[in-house]
């Protein structure tokens, strides 16, 4: 394989990793600064190192990110061996070994878990992520002067297509098995039913709390990454010291 191809592959590996989200924060692991190294050999072998803000970050979410990273990279054409290494983590050895064997979560922690692919945990956080994103879109519409009735009547095709929140909402709804065609309602309850206009303000109050929780956790992760790991990422909110 030529050097040109290898270089292209490094970029495409990072591109693939940008599609992997921290399930708790609903943000790409690359933007959070979790990917600390990504190497592609001339032969197409890939090694990715992931480091989370603290060694104690929850093992289940750590596993999901590492496993999703492996799946995303393996999908790329021309890639041979894929090694994902979770570094400086309390359960890093168990997770790395399981991923190396191609095992699921049960393989990493035999006897300590029952859900091999962490489906229930994943779904719970996809739902939190969806409601958080919807709250941002909803607030923006209200701020522009739309009435609750107008907001509740919006469909997916009415959302600003270029807004990352709108695109992510569609992806989250697809993954949750909720309707996501252009004509489906823009703001939905967990059942997929549209949020009624009369309930919109109340719904927004809870949705906004979920969003705030996600954002604050993301903020604390970024702060810890900077203080603990020396990883400085784009972070306008934090007070500079």
């Amino acid at each position, binding site marked *: 394989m030529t050097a040109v191809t290898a270089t292209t592959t490094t970029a495409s590996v990072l591109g693939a990793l940008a599609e992997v989200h921290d399930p*708790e924060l609903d943000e790409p692991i690359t933007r959070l600064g979790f990917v600390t190294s990504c190497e592609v050999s001339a032969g197409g072998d890939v090694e990715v190192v992931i480091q989370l803000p*603290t*060694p*104690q*970050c*929850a*093992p*289940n979410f750590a596993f999901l990110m590492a496993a999703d990273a492996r799946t995303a990279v393996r999908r790329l054409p021309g890639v041979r061996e894929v090694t994902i290494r979770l570094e*400086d983590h*309390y359960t890093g050895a168990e997770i790395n070994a399981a991923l190396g064997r191609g095992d699921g*979560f049960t393989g990493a*922690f035999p006897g*300590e*878990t*029952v*859900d091999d692919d*962490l489906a*229930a*945990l994943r779904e*719970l956080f996809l739902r*939190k992520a969806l409601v958080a994103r919807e709250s941002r879109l909803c607030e923006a519409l209200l701020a522009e002067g739309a009435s609750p009735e107008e907001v509740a009547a919006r469909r997916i095709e009415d959302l600003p297509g270029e807004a990352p929140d709108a695109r992510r909402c569609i992806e989250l709804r697809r993954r949750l098995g909720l309707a996501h065609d252009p004509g489906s309602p823009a703001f939905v309850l967990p059942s997929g039913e549209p949020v009624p206009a009369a309930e919109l303000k*109340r719904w927004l*109050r*809870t949705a906004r*709390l*979920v969003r*705030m*929780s996600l*954002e*604050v*956790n993301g*903020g*604390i992760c970024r*702060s*810890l990454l*900077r*203080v*603990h790991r020396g990883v400085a990422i784009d972070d306008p*909110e*934090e*007070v500079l*010291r």
Partner: protein
Amino acid sequence: MYEKNGEKYFVVDGHQHFWDASPANWVKGQEQYAKGWIECFHAYMGLGPPETHWPLEKFMKYSEEDYDHDVFEAGHIDAAVLQSTYLKEWYTEGFNTIDRNARMVEKYPDKVIVNGRFDPREGEAGLKQLEEDSKRYNLKGVKVYTAEWYKGSRGWKLTDPEAQIFLDKCKELGIKNVHAHKGPTIWPLDKDAFDVKDIDVAATSNPELNFIVEHVGLPRIEDFCFMATQEPNVYAGLAVVIGGLMHARPRFFNKVMGELLFWVGEDKMLFGSDYGIWEPQWQVEGFIDWTMPDTEEYSDYPHPTTETKKKIMGLNTAKLYDIEVPAELQLKNGGAPAAKEDAQLVESA
């Protein structure tokens, strides 16, 4: 007592530690965990103002003199509750055991309260120990850390049947405050370990006990708020909210406080510095100075008053621990709860 602009505040720090995480106390073969734990705590200290940061070596084991100075000489603290966390899988003598914490009670019998702890996985021996601790130290509260590792198990829940036996024992012993601290592991490992649902269930079945959820259930503030708004005996421990956000992320601090004031209410929010993670002084002074900005972004949130701050800074915890408050530091007009009215205001907006 802290005085600012003619107002006097009785300050109770509901969440403190006096730990020994120095290398001499690390369990052989478990050094990576003992070291990782304290280094992570040290990183949190980095979220406070730079002039309050300590070098790691001091942070691992601070002295009694440090405690004297930081808490009582500089910290404005009138009374403090020391929480006990054992982590004996990683720390030979424990991280901060009740006996170690009790050294401060001996020194400040009128100011320092020590809380015990329990772990339902310790069974009969644990029950006996809790009874002994309670007799020796006249316990009014316990801290429970559900993510503690114990003989191959990485955590437990307050809904485990064994946990109820310990909660019953608490009632029998006159222990009425349970400080619950969630962590990153629990059994089975596929569950969300930070979920506060087990506290919800325990609070409903044990109305005689108060459940103080430390660091307001972070990282699950939303689950905590939805629960606390329905449970009269669930309280918000503000450790980490003030220390970790007030300086580092003031906008998020405003929003978290706004949500807590709305959902939980000022009568159920309790100041805790989390010392030695952060010194109390800057937290007390900063919190009294803090105001909710008068901008559109925060218009939906209740705005704290002087009374709000007096309650959160000390009067609420004083009530839970029967700490006597000098007459001049009590609320002048009895202090009716404001949270409900504020919630209605927001609903009708």
